[in-house]
């Protein structure tokens, strides 16, 4: 803040704080309050119900598949882009950003038409009796789509800053390209990978729009946690909605705390990514 002093400075500070409190803290706090309004046991009952645990399991399954795929793909793509070995780099770069720019509903719709009975891939799959649409597989594909850019976007600038000298030094010392990658490059960009992974996990767990369209939306079977929250709201089952909602919020909070811890560690560490 400038030296203008006293009143103006405090007015700005506190108006920003009030704004954040009203817009961000109050709604989440309200969910927290409603969740525990009648004590802990209704929350436990709601979360341990068959439908809620099924939703949590499905969310975790999709995340456990989508995240590793996006890590491997993200590092490979990021490396090719940063080392200028990608054909049509401007096009690839724009494509990577597509999931950021596109509404998740449209992503869901795109997966839907591609894997439907008349879609390019769907035709083949249906004729071979491999159902994808309205199963967890289509939901996973949609999730991979929306969470694809995070690792790439984190890794590319760090790789560019790192340069190629360390890889060359490794090569001269007798390392194969794979050894150079796993012993030198990957450790040097590890915080970027961790950071990108955390963001990917957050996006995968929280995705609603895209998976909604390709899910068969059957309670206790094909609802992820966010879909389950929506379902409970519509079914006028507030305790279950609040409990599952709070669970999602807590997971997000843990991810945020983890990210903050990692980013401060990344800054302090003498052997950080830079």
């Amino acid at each position: 803040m400038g030296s203008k002093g006293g009143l103006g400075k405090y007015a700005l500070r506190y108006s920003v704080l009030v704004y954040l409190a009203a817009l961000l803290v109050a709604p989440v706090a309200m969910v927290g309050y409603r969740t525990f309004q009648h004590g802990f046991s209704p929350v436990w009952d709601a979360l341990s119900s068959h439908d809620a645990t099924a939703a949590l399991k499905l969310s975790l399954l999709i995340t456990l598949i989508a995240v590793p795929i996006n890590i491997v793909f993200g590092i490979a793509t990021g490396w090719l882009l940063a080392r200028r070995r990608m054909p049509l780099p401007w096009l690839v770069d724009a494509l990577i950003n597509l999931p950021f720019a596109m509404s998740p509903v449209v992503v869901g719709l795109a997966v839907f038409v591609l894997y439907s009975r008349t879609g390019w891939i769907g035709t083949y799959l249906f004729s071979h009796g491999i159902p994808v649409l309205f199963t967890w597989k289509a939901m996973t594909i949609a999730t991979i789509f929306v969470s694809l850019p995070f690792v790439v976007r984190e890794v590319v600038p760090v790789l560019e800053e790192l340069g190629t000298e360390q890889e060359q030094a490794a090569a001269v010392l007798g390392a194969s390209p794979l050894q150079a990658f796993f012993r030198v490059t990957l450790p040097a960009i590890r915080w970027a990978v961790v950071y990108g992974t955390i963001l990917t996990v957050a996006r995968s767990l929280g995705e609603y729009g895209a998976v909604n369209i390709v899910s068969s939306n059957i309670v206790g079977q094909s609802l992820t946690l966010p879909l389950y929250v929506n379902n409970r709201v519509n079914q006028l089952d507030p305790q279950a909605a609040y409990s599952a909602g709070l669970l999602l919020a807590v997971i997000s909070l843990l991810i945020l705390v983890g990210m903050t811890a990692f980013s401060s560690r990344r800054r302090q560490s003498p052997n950080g990514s830079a």
Partner: protein
Amino acid sequence: MSIKVSNVSKSFGDFHALLDVSVEIEPGHLTAVLGPSGGGKSTLLRIIAGLETADSGHVEIEGVDVTNVPARDRGIGFVFQHYAAFTHMTVWENVAFGLKVQKTPKDRIKVRVAELLALVHLDGFAARYPSELSGGQRQRMALARALAVEPGLLLLDEPFGALDVKVRQELREWLRRLHDEVHTTTIFVTHDQEEAMEIADRIIVVNHGHIEQSGTPADLYDRPANDFVMGFLGPVTTLGGRLVRPHDIRVSTKAAAGAQRASLERVVSLGFETRIVATPEDGSDPITVQLTRNQVHELELEVGSKVYLTALADAN
């Protein structure tokens, strides 16, 4: 290891870094590749290392054509200008890297790394990270790392270029002593003629993508092949339309046949050396001459004196 570079050319887009370069490097020597920046000297070193591929031509190491052999199989050590330290590894791990990659037994690695850290005076720094070292220490670590795999050929690309003057001076003397102990064939790239003259057995002068001259420092200084080499290796001044060294000019106050008549314009005292600047009466460029303090006293030179300048017979 002996090295033979034959007819190597390399371009980066429109820029010709090397044009049909051929050179041989004798085993056991400390050779400097000297030249102005952008002259192609680093490219030559990187092609010998296998870090860059020549557009045409061949590289032989110990009589074996290695043109298509990847860097990791050439048995060389390479030291980069900006250290290229593995930032996430300790000093110990950096030095051990090449040995680990080559699957050297663990107890052997321990012994070897300890030897090398002692050699580069980094004994107490094994557990530090490169970011906790000074520039000079990092470059010594890089050198130890390169020497760990016992390369037959050590290549250094402007190794002291990023260091301040004092550390540079220390490290170059130290590199010379190290070479006298280890005897590994060594090539280093530099744009600093003093550095090259001081520690190299042989100097290869590279400019505009080709080799101007190669030989011992004394050869190049005393018998430069052309004006570029003469100008690059030491101070020069023009006398009678010819380049001469400022210390290879005889100054007299008496007329002599063929001497350039000039009037003394400046006398700069630099301790042992005194530098005088004289303007020829024929209107050509001022001439700089290096004399000793005693010579200036004996000749009773002062600003405005008339002097007669002759190139010393043995100059050139």
